């Protein structure tokens, strides 16, 4: 049965005018349809025009852009030529927009309920009482806690994932014909993303609403979209049903996008350890370290972030540090770099104790540990040319000047696969991925032993991010530098790291070689993280939600506790009366694999077996019997 067409976009062209009056086409003739009750995904990298196209369905262009041709028909009415006054009736009532960041969308000074119902009441769609009732229904549909009371709270009183869902309630409250969702889960942790996705999908089905879903993440799209439009440079590369695009892509660009999708984290993805760099002494040793913010009173900081961390970074190895936001990953890197002195415990470099504060460290020690910041946009001084940015560590640590320095800068640019003439450019004249390369090049210029990479691929598109990882791998192989690679993205870590440290609420819950950590037995938290990474497979979301750990684990924030196991309130296997009171014992397995849990290894293995049975039925054996047990 052919569904009714809601939005027809016909040969849509959008152009920009630059300062010199030149007209630059941004969207070059795009045609697609949105039917009632259908979710259409616009997928592409930054600069593909996907947000611009989605905004056209609101009869809106960003400042500096204008419609240059074509049509966008909503219920037969052309949005490109409607009266400005008519757009007020349209926006919010007929078409609703969901921005990427809910935190920035909600007004912190007005209660949530008021904001959710505002647009519906303003447009005269319903009275305040009706709207409030409708909002409550939506809170229930979106599975928000305390649905009857959440409307009276203020935005800062709910979690990020809840706020994102509340924004969906805001959009749906006035019963719009069409919703535009702009990267609604991109900024979220995997565990939160899954919760939001699930709620979105349910509410879209129940309300039978149509939506345009804008994202760069194919795996997310596979869960929620009926129809996929693949964009590149303002043109459609390919479009078709989700099934067709995901399982049988025909365009080479789509295939390229698929290849860049984060693979499911599993053992065997990591590269082999470069044995030639192996030396006896670890490059960095963190011993029983506790750190936090605020004044330190008798070895305890006012706010403790990291508690009793023990980890080694062996020479030439890549250690991946993983956990959700708020687990203390960045703090760990800052402590190692000396930016935040630890409260107690030790940091050793090549076996020699380091001062906590970097002012107390020797120049040579500073040079050996280099920090690569997350956001290349802010980590590079916009007023310095690339040559000066990379040249400074050369001059500062190695005393290179003039021609010698320039030659070395060119050499380093070559290492990060950028042309030599970039040395005269300013950071602003570079793309995001290029800036990230410069950011790493600056650290490389110091000729370090250890590079601390804090979420270096998080802000990048999948293809660009994959290229950066490729570069890091080749750098490791060529220079023998050790990496501490911090990420919330388990699949990136799985494909790059030799060892993984799983942090939860400032404690190491599991660590060991990548292949061991990603094979059962798992710490319940590691299991939750692995299960939450979306797979490029239709139906994955429903399947995952059946798992027991999901029901308990998602939709909760990280809480830092001083006593007991911090994961207790999210753990499907918690032992009441024990886990929340006693610190869990460290269980040592083979190859330095450690799990910190009150449950025994047998119990963890048993749990894994049950999960596999839920997923695959009884015919498939869950876990190998030969698996290691506690010694």
């Amino acid at each position: 049965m052919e569904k009714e067409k809601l939005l027809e976009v016909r040969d849509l062209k959008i152009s920009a005018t630059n300062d010199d009056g030149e007209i630059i086409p941004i969207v070059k003739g795009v045609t697609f349809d949105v039917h009632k009750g259908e979710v259409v995904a616009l997928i592409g990298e930054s600069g593909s025009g996907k947000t611009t196209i989605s905004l056209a369905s609101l009869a809106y262009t960003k400042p500096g852009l204008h419609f240059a041709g074509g049509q966008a028909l909503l219920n037969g009415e052309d949005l490109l030529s409607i009266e400005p006054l008519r757009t007020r009736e349209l926006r919010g009532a007929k078409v609703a927009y969901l921005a990427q960041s809910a935190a920035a969308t909600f007004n912190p000074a007005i209660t949530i309920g008021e904001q959710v119902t505002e647009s519906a009441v303003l447009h005269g769609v319903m009275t305040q009482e009706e709207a409030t009732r409708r909002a409550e229904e939506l809170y229930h549909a979106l599975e928000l806690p305390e649905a009857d009371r959440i409307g009276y709270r203020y935005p800062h009183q709910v979690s990020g994932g809840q706020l994102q869902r509340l924004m969906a309630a805001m959009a749906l409250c006035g019963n719009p014909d069409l919703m535009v969702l702009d990267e609604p889960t991109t900024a979220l942790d995997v565990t939160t993303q899954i919760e939001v996705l699930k709620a979105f999908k349910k509410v879209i089905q129940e309300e039978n609403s149509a939506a345009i879903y804008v994202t760069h993440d194919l795996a997310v799209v596979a869960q929620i979209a009926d129809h996929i439009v693949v964009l590149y440079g303002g043109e459609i590369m390919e479009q078709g049903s989700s099934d067709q695009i995901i399982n049988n892509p025909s365009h080479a660009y789509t295939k390229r996008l698929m290849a860049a999708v984060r693979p499911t984290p599993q053992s065997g993805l990591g590269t082999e350890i470069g044995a030639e760099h192996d030396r006896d002494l670890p490059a960095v040793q963190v011993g029983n370290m506790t750190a936090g913010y605020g004044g330190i009173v008798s070895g305890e900081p006012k706010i403790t972030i990291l508690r009793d961390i023990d980890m080694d970074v062996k020479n030439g190895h890549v250690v991946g540090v993983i956990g959700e936001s708020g687990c203390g990953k960045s703090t760990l890197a800052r402590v190692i770099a000396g930016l935040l002195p630890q409260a107690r415990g030790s940091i050793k470099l090549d076996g020699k104790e380091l001062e906590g504060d970097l002012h107390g460290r020797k120049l040579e020690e500073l040079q050996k540990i280099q920090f690569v910041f997350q956001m290349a946009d802010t980590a590079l001084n916009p007023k310095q040319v690339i040559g000066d940015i990379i040249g400074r560590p050369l001059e500062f640590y190695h005393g290179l000047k003039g021609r010698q320095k320039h030659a070395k800068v060119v050499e380093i640019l070559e290492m990060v696969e950028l042309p030599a003439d970039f040395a005269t450019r300013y950071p602003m004249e570079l793309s995001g991925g290029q800036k990230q390369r410069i950011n790493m090049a600056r650290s490389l210029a110091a000729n370090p032993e250890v590079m601390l990479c804090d979420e270096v691929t998080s802000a990048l598109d999948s293809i660009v991010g994959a290229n950066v990882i490729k570069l890091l791998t080749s750098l490791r192989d060529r220079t023998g530098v050790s990496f501490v690679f911090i990420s919330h993205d388990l699949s990136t870590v799985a494909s790059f790291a030799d060892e993984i440290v799983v942090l939860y609420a400032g404690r190491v819950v599991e660590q060991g070689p990548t292949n061991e950590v990603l094979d059962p037995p798992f710490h319940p938290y590691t299991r939750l993280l692995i299960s939450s990474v979306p797979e490029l497979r239709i139906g994955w979301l429903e399947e995952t939600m059946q798992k027991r750990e999901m029901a308990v684990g998602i939709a909760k924030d990280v809480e830092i506790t001083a006593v007991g196991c911090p994961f207790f309130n999210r753990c499907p296997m918690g032992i009441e009366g024990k886990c929340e009171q006693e610190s869990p014992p460290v269980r040592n397995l083979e190859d330095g694999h450690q799990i910190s849990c009150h449950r025994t290894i047998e119990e963890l293995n048993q749990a894994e077996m049950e999960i596999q049975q839920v997923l695959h039925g009884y015919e498939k054996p869950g876990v190998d019997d030969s698996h290691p047990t506690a010694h």
Partner: protein
Amino acid sequence: MNENKSTKEEAVLAELDAFAELPDAPPKRRIKLSWVGKLSVAVVAFWLVMCVIGPSIAPFHEMDMDGDDGFMDAHSNEYGTFHLGTDYLGRDTLSRIIFGARNTIGISLASTILAYLMGITLGILAAVKGGWIDMGISRINDAILALPTIMLGLIAIAWLGSSIPVLIGTASIIYASSVFRIARALGQDIMVQDFVEAAKARGEGVWWIIRSEVLPNAAMPLATDFGLRLVFVVLFISSLSFLGLGVQPPASDWGSMVRENLQGLTYGSYAAIWPAFAIATFTIAINLIVDDVSAKSGGSLAKKMV
């Protein structure tokens, strides 16, 4: 058709491989002024030229009482032509405005530069060092800011007497306090940026961080503010002169010219209007340039100023 499609696919892939990522960001934009901006630059340039060559091209000396009478309209006599008429003592208004430019703009410029040197040094120092140094300087600064500027000026002049160095000193100290606030706020913003953190992690010293990381990034907003601040100082000096405490007669200055000739308005003389007009052209022109520059550089600058 099929062939066409595959060549297009190849083109996209070739593009992807060539950049390995996105196309280059657009080259940096030069700041281009609108015609209003250009006109304003011309006006400011005109007055600056007048400061330098004014006295040698003015038809009369500022102190010559050569007119037929006080508060005359434009007329000629055996000494020459009085294009804008005469003031209350029969002096040529045009010549006095040309001479006055040197005093008004010169004093203002000197005060503003001095205010900037003091304000930036202390402001950046407070931002970088923080703690007690910041606390100390900021509280003293708050005290200065709390007092009305004209009152402060009056007190200083009553105490030290009116002379050009005293005027410059007073104006610069008063206006240094607002420069301090802006420099400190800008400095604090920049100090928490990752690139400063990166420099600290590298082990750089305080002075290197100030010179290479903080100042270059504060320069543009500070330069814009310089224009605005100069306007305020012109008005401040003019108001002091209007009260009779600024530049002392017989030397000319735009503010005191307005005051001297105020009574002329009742006789229908324009002698008080012309210097007021000169103040207006100079200050409005600078304001327009500042507006234009900050609008072209993204508008965020104007927000930071406040």
